[in-house]
Every structure is written in C-alpha cells, then in structure tokens.
C-alpha cells in the first residue's frame, strides 16, 4: 500500500512546478481511487515509470487549453504542439526529480516520456488501483495519477 508521504512527494513536485514556473499556485482537489478501468488521460501526458520498492507509473495529464495558458504565463509566445509536449515533460521531470530526492535508491525512476493525443499509449499496470489527484489551476483541471503496486 502506498503511503501518504509517498503520495505527497508526487503532489508536491506537481504543485511546485505551477507555483514556480507558471507564477501562480495550483490547488489540489479531492483525490479519488479508480478501482477498475483506466483513469483519465487528457491530450498531453508526461509519464514516469517506477521500479524497485514500488512498481508502476505516475503521470501528469493536461488539456491543450491549460497548457496554452501555462505557456503564456511563462512568457512563451510560441504556443506550439512541440512546446506543449515539452511542458508536460518538464512537469513530469520535476515530479521525477522530487521522487529521486525523497525516495533515494529504493525507487528506480525513469526519464519521463510524453504521450500526445494517443491515450491508449498510457498503460497503467493491470489489477492496480490508481490514485487520481485533481490539480486545479485557474479555470483548468489537470490530473496527477499515481498507479503503483
């Protein structure tokens, strides 16, 4: 069973990105568990794979409108697909960096991969409950999904 501290590390990595890079804090919605089926996958998703003490994936998934506003808040003028892929990758990268710092050698954490527009390519392990944490920012909502054995 995943601990509250472990979950908080992933959440903190995500909210820290919004506060620092997009200059406006995000709020964390009520987490929920998906027992069966696949959790939400939006248009852009940054995925990190985890092995070692825990196995599975953690992903941050967001819509194009949300990423557009984030890029604008960051001062970026090129609101392109490439930059949106970059942005979810950077959020996932920050989550990954936080996890490496807090969990040390117990966890082996991959470099993030980004999935754009192909939700079937985001593949949580079977028979594992997923924790979904809504990340609300301005009028938008992204999801942080933690799916670990």
């Amino acid at each position, binding site marked *: 069973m995943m601990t509250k501290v472990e979950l908080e590390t992933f959440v903190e990595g995500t909210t820290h990105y919004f506060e*620092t890079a997009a200059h406006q804090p995000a709020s964390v919605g009520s987490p929920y568990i998906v027992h069966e089926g696949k959790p939400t996958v939006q248009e852009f998703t940054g995925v990190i794979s985890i092995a070692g003490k825990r196995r599975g994936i953690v992903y941050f998934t967001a819509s194009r409108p949300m990423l557009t506003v984030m890029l604008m808040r960051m001062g970026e003028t090129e609101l392109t697909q490439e930059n949106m892929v*970059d942005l979810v990758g*950077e959020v996932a990268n*920050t989550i990954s960096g936080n996890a*490496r710092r807090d969990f*040390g050698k117990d966890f082996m954490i991959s*470099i993030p991969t980004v999935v754009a527009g192909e939700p079937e390519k985001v593949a949580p392990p079977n028979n594992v409950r997923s924790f979904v944490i809504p990340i609300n920012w301005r009028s938008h909502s992204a999801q942080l999904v933690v799916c670990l054995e």
Partner: protein
Amino acid sequence: MALAQTQAAGANKLKLMICDDSNIIRRKIERELKIDRLQVIATASNGRLAVEAFKKEPADVVTMDITMPEMDGIECVEKLVAIKPDVLILVISALADKATAIEALKKGANGFLCKPFTDRQLTEALEELLRGADHDDQG
C-alpha cells in the same frame, strides 16, 4: 585571468551557451537573462551538439541540463572542461538529489540550480557563478 581577457576582447561580454533538451527552457533562459555582461552565442538540445558547438566557438559560461538524449549533461560537462578548463558551468536540472549535484561538481561544474526556477533564481545563480570567477581571478 582567462575571463578578464575574454571580456576585454569581446566588447565586455562573456559568451554564454545554453544546453537543454527542452525548447521552452532554452527560450526561457534566453528571455529571462538579465545579466548585461552575458551574451548568448549558442544553444544546444543535447550534450553531443553542445560539444560540437563548443569546439567551434568555446563559451565562457554554460548552462547545462543533466537528462538529455545522445549525451547527458554529466558527460558533456567533463568534455567541455577538457576543452576549456576555466569554462564556468551552471547545471540546471530537475534531478534534485545531492548525488547528482555532487557528481556534476566533481566533473567540473561550478554551480547547481534546481528546476523549476524563477527568473530571479536564474539571475542569482549566474551572478554567483560570475562572482566566484571574478574572485578567483583577483585571488
């Protein structure tokens, strides 16, 4: 010594290279660079391209990501220092663990800034890097 010479020869500007696989981070560093004495001369999206650009025109200061395709930042730091031992390298990475920072410093990096960063944090980190170099020149 080398820094002072470069400044005199290059219209008081130090040459900066930005190495990061993220386009938005490269553009952010260029956009938010608020240090008059630094001038961006090259950007690279991986370590291999950074080494190639550095061989053509060595920068005085480099911002360096760690996790990149083809050649990572740790290996790249080692190669750049081998070419120009007094290059100043600021590692900018989301890998916030101490081991990564220590490894980069061992290979020859001079500072470490965690991603994500604000423009103020970037400016302060680069100024600290330059202050250290100025101090070494005077010492």
